[in-house]
């Protein structure tokens, strides 16, 4: 499949239909760039780890430290940038595991709609959906040792059912489409139908949901780390930075406000980006 210039231009026009999605693209691109190369770009790279400089502790924002410094005298801007990598990793890994798992469960159930397999798989999915997501994640993360891997595991466990629901809906409606019926009639195997016929059709809605979900996964990760269940000190995490700073509100407001604004900005960015992607992959009108 070759992508020529014209196709790319079409995609761009469709992505940028509402204009504001371009802001989303800029935020997301900036975020990913900083996550990858932040260690080299941050003004004080060594502040990202266990660095102590009590002489400069709790300084308000200034030209030297744009976002101020924390209790240990570390530059908050550098620590925010330093937290990006684990934040991005959290989103990518959680979605890359939960989307395929959810897809398989949903498609197998949807394709066999009305059978015992459908009932079993979708009831399990429903049970997961019925438990409030944060409670479930907190429970899992607190039973296990509090670290990054386990918090990702916890979020993944509560995330796949959404993809199962989505794929289930698409698969069960596709069952009535003639091209699926034809594949059955001609004697194609179930794996062929699931991966070659249904997956390509689902793909655009799954990808759209993944970009939109990125922001939510990040906020969920931040919530867990706020509760002390994510990345452990001295490594920086946006959630734990907020939770530690909150005690010093309002006097040392910069401890809290800048990480919080960063989270808001990232989530806004992924939301706008997701809107653009959904417009781009959406049905072609003309």
């Amino acid at each position, binding site marked *: 499949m070759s992508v020529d210039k014209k196709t790319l231009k079409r995609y761009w026009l469709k992505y940028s239909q509402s204009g504001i999605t371009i802001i989303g693209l800029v935020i997301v691109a900036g975020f990913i760039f900083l996550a990858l190369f932040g260690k080299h770009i941050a003004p004080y790279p060594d502040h990202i780890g266990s660095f102590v400089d009590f002489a400069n502790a709790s300084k308000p924002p200034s030209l030297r430290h744009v976002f101020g410094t924390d209790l240990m005298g570390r530059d908050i801007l550098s620590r925010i940038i330093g937290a990006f990598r684990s934040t991005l990793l959290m989103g990518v890994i959680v979605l890359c595991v939960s989307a395929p798992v959810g897809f398989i469960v949903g498609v197998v159930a949807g394709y066999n709609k009305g059978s015992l397999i459908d009932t079993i798989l979708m009831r399990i999915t429903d049970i997961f959906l019925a438990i409030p997501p944060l409670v479930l994640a907190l429970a899992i993360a607190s039973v296990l040792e509090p670290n990054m891997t386990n918090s990702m595991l916890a979020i993944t466990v509560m995330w796949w059912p959404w993809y199962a629901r989505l794929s289930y809906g698409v698969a069960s409606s596709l069952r009535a489409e*003639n091209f699926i019926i034809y594949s059955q*009639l*001609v*004697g194609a195997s179930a794996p062929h139908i699931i991966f070659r016929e249904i997956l390509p059709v689902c*793909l655009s809605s799954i990808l759209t949901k993944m970009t939109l979900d990125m922001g939510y996964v990040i906020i969920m990760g931040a919530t867990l780390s706020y509760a002390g269940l994510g990345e452990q000190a001295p490594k920086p995490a946006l959630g734990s930075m907020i939770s530690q700073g909150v005690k010093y509100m309002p006097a040392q407001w910069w401890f809290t406000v800048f990480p919080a604004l960063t989270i808001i900005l990232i989530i806004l960015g992924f939301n706008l980006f997701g809107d653009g992607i959904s417009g781009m992959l959406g049905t072609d009108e003309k």
Partner: protein
Amino acid sequence: MDDNILRIDNLKKYFPLKGGLVVKAVDGVSLRLAAGETLGLVGESGSGKSTIAYVLIGMYEATDGRIIYKGEDISRGGLRRTLKQKSEMQIVFQDPGSSLNPKRTIRQSLAVPLAVHSKNTPGKDLDKKIEGLLDEVELPLDFAGKYPSALGGGERQLVSVARALAANPSLIILDEPTSALDVSIQAKVISKLIDLQHEKSLSYLFITHDLSLMRNVADRVAILYLGRLCEQAPAPEFFQNPLHPYTQMLLSSIPVVTPEEESMKPARIRSSGEIPSPVNVPPGCAFHLRCRNKMPICETERPLMKTVTEGHEVCCHLDFER
């Protein structure tokens, strides 16, 4: 010797509903189809014409009756047919938008029946076969790399025809293959279908609501109403001498474009009433509520199929002695 490749005997397909109601979608239909022949199966919505197609290809299991294909009874088992049986009977669906996977190229779509029915085809041969198929329906070879959205409705239907041919069938069920198309495109697809039939001596079961098309396409025409056959005759006889009151109403309702056609319509028959729900089929003759020749017997007794002249059968209580 039986030269019919397909025989349907007293086929019934009922769909049970909640509350003990039953939709009698097909209620005792008998048909036969000779090799190389086109049978036009015509009916309005709710007549059960598509249900017959779906039972034939095995999507639904028949409630009762028999389907004999080349001497083998295939009325049981639904999709559990042998690959050979599956390849022998192919279908082209009505909606060109849904019959091809929108996210797969034409090549990928055409490769499915080839891969299933001739396993272990090397890539080069596969490409050749796909080109051959496109050639057969006179589509440009570069269509292979395109997606269905880049094709017009008629071109997609021709791809569906090519896909059906890929399995090397003897019988193709055409389920309203052109009713979603414009007439100029329809004419193209129809003429291609007729050519292919002659080249490969295919049999067609042509299902449609468009009776006017049948004059050009079908060797024989059968009319369905509420899951039952009303009339069946060779096409020329059918159009010159329509006998069943429903056939006459149907013919007189067709909007035509020339005065010559106008004169072929049974005079002064106005369509009235609507087709009742198949849940609630009237007793006796299913058509008696709309029939202008209704007799007392029609309300109580279901008419039997009777032969009027050679090959011309009518299911009506009226007396058609010539």
